[in-house]
Structure formats: C-alpha cells, structure tokens
C-alpha cells in the first residue's frame, strides 16, 4: 500500500481533500493488520467493528467542510493501558485479560471528538513495567526492523504498530522512558510531554507522579498534530493543570498552523535550529554507551552546530542516583496503584477450591494473575513504604528527585535544550533482557530524569548501528514548552533524513527481508519461555 509511505499528516491531507475515504483506508489497514500482526504481535485487541464505525463517522465529519482536522479518519492504535469504553483494556496482564472499562480515558474521548479511528489496542509490558514488551502476559511483540529483536517497552506494541505499517500514529505512555525508548528502537519520533499537559484520567496508573500519555509517529510534525489534539486541561485530573498563562495552547495552535503549511508544501522560517543553545552533559560519554551510539551522538552535535545551534558541554550531577530514586518512587506508587487488583470487584479471581480465608483469597488471586516483574516492583515498593523504612527509602528518593529537578531547572535557565542519548544500546534480541532485571533497570538511565523532573522530552532518529538498527537522540526542553520542542524536532528532521528510513520498514511485508524471523522458535514458544505463561 503506497499510502504507508505517507505520514499521518500526509494521509490526513488526502482525507481532507476527499481523495481517499477513511472507510476504504481503514478496511485496507485492517486487512494489513490481519496479514502482519500474527508475526509482529503489536495488538492485543483488534476491534474491526469499532474501527469501521469510527471511519464512517470520520467520513461524515470530513463531508462537512471545515469540521475535520488533519487526524480525522487516520487509523491509529492506543496502548492497552488507556481505557476505552466497551473495548477491553488489559494492561498486558492476565489480571485484566477480560476487563472491559465502562468509561473512556479523557485523551481517547478528545481524539474521538476529532474523528480518530482506532483499529486496536497495542501490546505493552505488563502494567507498563518493562523495557522490552516481553513482560506482557498476553503477546510477544517483534521489532519490525529485525524480528528477532524487541521493539522496546513499555509502549512496544505502539511503536511496532507504527513502524510495522499497522497505524499512522499511536498513543503511548511514558513513566521512565516508555515512549522514547521504543520510539528509539523502532526509528520513530516520540514525545513524553510535560507532566500535567495531557490528562491521565483513564490511563491505568503505574506510577501516578511520573506517568504521562504522549504521541508516537514517523516524525515530529505528526507528533505535533497528535499532541495538540490530546493536550489540554481536564477537570477530572487534578494534576492536569489549567494552562494558566495559556502558553501551552497558544504555542500548540501556532505550531499546528505551521505544520499545515509545511504539509501543504509551504515553508515556515521559524522552524530552524539557528541560535539554539543546547547543553550536552559530558558525563553521558563516560557511561557504557554502545560505541556506535557515541559516534552517532558526536556526529549529531556537529550537524546541530553546522545548522547554527550552539552546543556546550555541561555537568550533570546525580545521574547515578537517578535510577535508584526512580525505581523507589515508581515502585512505591505502583504498590499502591496495583493493590486494587484483588479479585473482588472486577478482573481475574482465583478459581482455587480450597481458599481458606480472605487473606488467602487475595494472595492466591494476585499470585496467580500478576507476572514476575509486576510482583517484583510491588514488593520493592511495599518495602520502601513500610514502617521504619519510609524515611530511608521513599523520602530520601523524593529528596534526590527534588535535587535533580532543581539542577535541570538551573540548566534550562541557561540553555534551550539538553541533548543526550535515549539508551545505552540499540534494540536487544528477544530473550536476552529479563534474566537480569538490574541491567534492564540501568538501561533507563538517560530517560528517567524527564519523568522525575516532569520536563518534556522528545526522541528523534539520528543514525543507525552496524546492524542497521535505528539510534535515537533525546532533547529535553522547558516545562510547558512542548510546542517549541516539537518545532525543534521538525527543524532537525528538515536537516536530516533518518526519520524517513522507517517508510521502507512500513512497506515491508512480515516475511520480506527478515531472515531471522523465527529465530528461537515460534512466538508462543518464546513467549512461554519468557513469562512462563502459555499463550
């Protein structure tokens, strides 16, 4: 399908001009999903009826001139921890395998209003806890660039769906890098917005003070369109603040207009790297980076400078403390957030016949239906909050968080952006990460700061390793200046073509060009060996 080469905005333009219809497009993409997803494993649930109904509604909206947006009628997928009324929302867990929410997340309602078309719910690490999508109890997702590799996590299904040509954009969620890291592994652009820019209402919580919903797409312009539609205050989320100064909305409206001009072939001079002050923490070079990533980053800095940006080295204290602080806070909040899965109200419940009492009922239900990674974090968080340890662990972690926040704030008083890698290495092979959770946790070292500080961070493709796997860079910006950050991303993508490579991947069929397709056995066998759960 030729349209797979197009971006979401590009397809949106064709839909708006009535050159294609959403009903046809959606039918095509559902067929494509059927062909490809058995191998890719992006989606936990495909809801054809819902997709076709939304496509029809989108066409109706588009028929009424001026009422659609550039995303109206463009097929997309939503991470399966974002509640969709009437459509099962599993969090990749056997605990919620059959849970059908009676209400929709605010962000999904907002997208529905502009005529979005959702074909399915994308795979994720169980309750968004993981970096490879392998902790999902329900599916194994493959990286479309190399099927023996993971797509990243936790929004791995969302990334693989966009890179694999099943959707033009996806919603992900990012608690410690879960949008940026899979975007990096799959050669995509992904934004972790400022905490509080997008409503969390209906996002099934992992760590409430860190979780944020954001867009994943082929380029920064698409991310701008999606973010613009998703962002905005919500009276149902106390942490989704009223945009007091109005700067977020004003910036987004302006950006949206510029994106439309660019898509229509016009040019906008404000999209430029010239004069931007970019901080490059020296400490990142000292960490165990894959050599190609270090090389690509040096080249990136040169390119930025050639385009007129001013890059300077800076200090970055507390990098080593950020991982323990992050895992303590995230696990502590998770231990509370996930306690509700007790088998009483909804979700799975132990079928054991010899349950002795209430405590036994709870522990059996949770033992049977939660996976090992989720249990590990619940136990870690429960410990960090327990009486006598609260000050030493949870409170100390919060103090570290405050110090990191203060430092980033002072850095961003002098610089427009902070540049860094997304991950220490490119996508690992399936089955190589889970045995050593500590190493897996440490691979989040470049991404967790944005969550601890609440700052917006954008992942952008910037090169490839020797296996032709994508490498990404990360720009961290000022709070609520998400629009500027996206604009800078667009400027980078005007100077480079790394983000275009994914077009080829999107057009590949599942078996084409992937010699290692079934390395290690079939999906079911691999999944079982990873999670101990038979599909």
């Amino acid at each position, binding site marked *: 399908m030729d349209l797979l080469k197009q971006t979401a905005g590009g397809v949106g333009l064709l839909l708006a001009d009535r050159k294609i219809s959403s009903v046809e497009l959606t039918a095509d993409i559902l067929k494509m999903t059927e062909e490809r997803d058995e191998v890719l494993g992006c989606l936990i649930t495909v809801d054809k009826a819902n997709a076709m109904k939304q496509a029809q509604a989108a066409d109706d909206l588009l028929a009424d001139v001026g009422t659609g947006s550039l995303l109206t009628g463009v097929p997309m997928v939503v991470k399966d921890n974002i509640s969709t009324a009437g459509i099962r929302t599993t969090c990749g867990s056997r605990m919620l395998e059959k849970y059908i929410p*009676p209400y929709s997340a605010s962000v999904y309602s907002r997208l529905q209003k502009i005529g979005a078309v959702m074909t399915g719910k994308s795979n994720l690490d169980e309750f968004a806890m993981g970096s490879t999508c392998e902790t999902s109890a329900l599916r194994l997702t493959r990286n479309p660039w190399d099927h023996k590799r993971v797509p990243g996590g936790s929004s791995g299904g969302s990334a693989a769906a966009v890179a694999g040509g099943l959707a033009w954009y996806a919603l992900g969620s990012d608690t410690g890098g879960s949008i940026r890291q899979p975007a990096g592994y799959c050669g995509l652009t992904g934004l972790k917005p400022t905490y509080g820019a997008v409503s969390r209402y209906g996002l099934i919580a992992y760590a*409430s003070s860190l979780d944020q919903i954001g867009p994943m797409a082929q380029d920064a312009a698409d991310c701008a369109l999606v973010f613009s539609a998703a962002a905005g205050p919500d009276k149902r989320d106390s942490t989704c603040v009223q945009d007091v100064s109005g700067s977020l909305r004003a910036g987004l409206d302006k950006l949206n207009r510029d994106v439309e001009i660019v898509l229509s072939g016009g040019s906008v001079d404000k999209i430029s790297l010239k004069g931007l002050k970019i901080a490059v923490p020296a400490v990142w070079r000292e960490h165990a980076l894959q050599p190609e990533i270090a090389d690509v980053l040096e080249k990136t800095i040169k390119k930025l400078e050639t385009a007129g940006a001013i890059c300077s080295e800076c200090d970055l204290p507390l990098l080593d403390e950020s991982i323990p602080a992050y895992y303590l806070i995230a696990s502590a909040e998770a231990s509370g957030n996930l306690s509700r899965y*007790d088998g*009483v109200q909804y979700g799975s419940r132990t079928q054991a016949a010899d349950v002795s009492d209430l405590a036994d009922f709870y522990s059996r239900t949770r033992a049977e239906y939660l996976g090992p990674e989720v249990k590990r974090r619940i136990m870690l968080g429960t410990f960090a*909050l327990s009486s006598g340890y609260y000050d030493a662990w949870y409170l100390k972690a919060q103090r570290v968080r405050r110090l990191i926040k203060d430092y980033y704030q002072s850095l961003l008083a002098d610089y427009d952006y902070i540049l860094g890698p997304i991950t220490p290495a490119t996508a690992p092979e399936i089955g190589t990460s889970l045995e050593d959770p500590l190493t897996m946790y440490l691979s989040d070292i470049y991404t967790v700061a944005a969550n601890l500080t609440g700052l917006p961070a954008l992942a952008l493709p910037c090169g490839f390793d020797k296996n032709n796997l994508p490498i990404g860079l990360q720009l961290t910006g000022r709070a609520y200046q998400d629009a500027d950050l996206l604009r800078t991303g667009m400027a980078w993508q005007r100077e480079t073509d790394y983000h275009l490579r994914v077009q080829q991947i999107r057009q590949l069929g599942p078996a084409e060009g992937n010699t290692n397709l079934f390395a290690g056995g079939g999906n079911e066998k691999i999944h079982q060996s990873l999670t101990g759960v038979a599909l």
Partner: protein
Amino acid sequence: MTYETVIGLEVHVELSTASKIFCGCPVTYGQEPNTKCCPVCTGLPGALPVLNKNVVEYALRTCLAVNCEISRITRFDRKNYFYPDLPKAYQISQLYQPIGRNGWLDIEVNGTKRRVRIHELHMEEDAGKLMHDPWEDQTLVDYNRCGVPLLEIVSEPDLRSAEEALTYLEQLRGILQFIGVSDCRMEEGSLRADVNVSVRPAGSNEFGTRTEMKNMNSFKAIGRAIEKESLRQIELLNEGGRVIQETRRWDENKDASFPMRSKEDAHDYRYFPDPDLTAVHVSEDWIDQVRRELPELPADRRKRYIGELGLSDYEAQIVTGHPVISGLFEDVYDLTKLAKDTASWIMGEYLQLLKDKNCGPENLSLSAEDLAAVVSMTAEGKVNRVTARKVLAAVIEDGVKPQTYIEQHGLAMVSDASLLEDTVRRVLAENPQSIEDYKNGKKKAAGFLVGQAMRALGGKADPQLLGSIINRQLSEA
C-alpha cells in the same frame, strides 16, 4: 489500689455536602445498593480523584468551631490496606499534613469544667458497606458509601470517665449540627467513634497500655463499653495480669468486649502522599470568610441566654441541644419576647410531641409563627394552657392556624364580665348549701362553685376573672 480511667476518642463524622469528596456522586443514605457510585468512587482502573472544595470548607468551619490551628498547606495521603469494602485498597486520608491541629473543647461535668484537647482534625473518604447473607453464605458489597466525605476528630487522652466522654461527644455533636456540617445521625452511622481506654494508678503520670474499640455508633454503647473495659483492665491488673495493646470488638447484646486483633497483627498502612491530588492552599482570606459565616456556637448561645434572657442553666442547655430546636427558640423569642414562656413550651409540650411522635426536631413541621401565637395567647390569657395544648396538637395534625382553630371551635376564653356575673349569680342561686358552707368557714366550697360556673361556661372562662367574681358575690351574699 484506686485506678484512674483514661479515655481518648477518635470521632468520625460524615459530612452532609451535596456530593462526595472526590467525585460528583450524591451523598445519600438508604438508596438501592450500588446506584450512587461511579468509576472514581468505585476505584476503577485509571479513574482519578478530584477534591470537592466544599469538604475543605466544612473542615475549616469545624476547625474554627473546635479551636484548631489550621494548616495553610494541607495534603492527602494514601492509607493502604486490603478489604473488600475498600475498592482501591487504599483510603485517601491525611496523615502528614492534616488540615487542623491543636484544638480544644471545654466540657462541664458535675459543675467541674475541663478542657479536652484535640490532637488533630483531618479529612478522608468513607468506605463501602459489606452485607453478609448468612442464608446464601455470601458477602455482598454496596459501594454507595464509598467516597462520602468524613472528618476525623482525634482527641488527646484527656477524658477520665464515661460521663466525661459522653459529655464531650454530646457537645461535639451539638457543634457539628449547629455549624451545619453533619446531621450526626448515629443510627445511620454518620457519627461513629473509636474509643481508646487505659487505666493507671490514681495520681500516676504515666499512661497504661490502651485498648481500642472501633466504630461504635451509639452513646449508650460507648458509655457502657468504657465502663466495662476499664473494669476489665482494673481486674486484670489486680490479678497481677497485664493489659495487652489490642483492638477489641464491643458486643452490645453480650454487654462485653472481645479481642479482635493484637498489636502484632496490626496493619502497616504504608502511608504516602497521594500523587493524584495536589496540595490544598488555605488562604487567610478563605479562613476569614469561613469565620465570618460561622453561626453562633451553642456554648456562646447558652451564655447569652443565661446572661441576657434570664434562662436557667438547665433551660439554656435544653433549648440549645439541637440546632433546629435552638433555631425555633430564637425565632419564637424574636416574635414574642417571652424567653421563659418560650423555653417552658419547648421543654414541655414541644419535646413531649417529639417523644410521642418518635421523630427528630427536623422532621416535625411546626413554624415559629404558630408556636409563637400559641405561646402569646396563653401568656396573654386568651386561652388557658390546657386548651392551648389542644390548639398546638391541631396545628401540627391538621396544619390549621392557631387563631383560626380557636375561632372555629369557640375556644377563646370568656372574659366578658357581665356574662360571668350572670352565670355566677345563677350558680349561686342553684347552690344555697355551698353558700352556707362557705359562710361557716368551709373555704373549699368556693372551689366547688368555681368548678360549677366553669362547667356552665364550657371550660372557657378566664379562671382568674371568674375566681374574683365568685369571691365578691359570695362576700355580698
């Protein structure tokens, strides 16, 4: 050895805000199960709490009424524990920065005044209700009560007897009702108390080991439980035993408490600040506004009634016992300016009516105007009190106006002197023997004649006027 009982109370009171503390569901009682709840109060995955500002306002009112210091920044924390009536498996409460601290309430028992210190006052959400069905051997959950706003008012261990504890509770209830934050219906569970009891040798400064009885919802049970528990502890100590720190369950039918769980299996609630809710900033302006709108508190009202209106301590106590009664007294007094008479009617006929009808003051429809009319008529001698009682009953039963009822039933007292003169003359003529007896010193005969004349007048004669006419005619006879 003599022992002293030491009591601390944790009072939970349901606030009567229109909607719940973190969602828009209505606060109701006795509705069909699971019809007054939503994704937020049933803790569905992904739902988020949003604080109801009125709850903070009610809490501020209460802080001011019980003399608490108010936190300018107050936060909510999660209290984690598993139970089927708690759908999120944590209760949103306040531990680290409660809205109120260091308050007090003065109570008076047997003429001795005592200041009971209040340790803290915090906001939290209520849990659902479990219903056990013994026939089907199953337990069902009703989530309607989930998210109903609660205030918890924690006293210091400053109370020394069941009587003091009950006085404190009554006083607190009166205040909460007066400031309109709760209806405090104990039978509906909107006022509940956890009772902490310990004993120590009289004169000792150290506290003994305490036990706790949770969720008590009647004054009678609380008083009884305190008495029995302190006796149990004293007996235990006298026998050389030790009190262990534990939670006990009070069984009203057995008139005894039983151990529930000891300190060893006490929950570790793993409190931490709720990241879903932002800090509440309480401004000086807000506090001032709440203070300005605060009604006169019962203690101040009592002082004014005794000092300015000349009521006795007892009368003042009774007419300020409930905000509806107190409001009625205020209004009737405003209309009649008859403080003593109004108090007498409220303490007599009015309370009797409540008792007869077995209803609360808020459920009896009686306007201040009507009661004022009855009080005035009686005081002015237009009707006598027995008749006035009939009028009051008719006003309540049939909703008629007192004046109309009296006119329709010809109940107004006969004060027409010439009619009374004529009637007395006729009665005397019919009873010459009584006149004889009277003249022979049997003064009781006059009473008999008054009765005869009153009967002839249908009981409506002004008794004073009638008496003086009979006395005069007798002396002239």
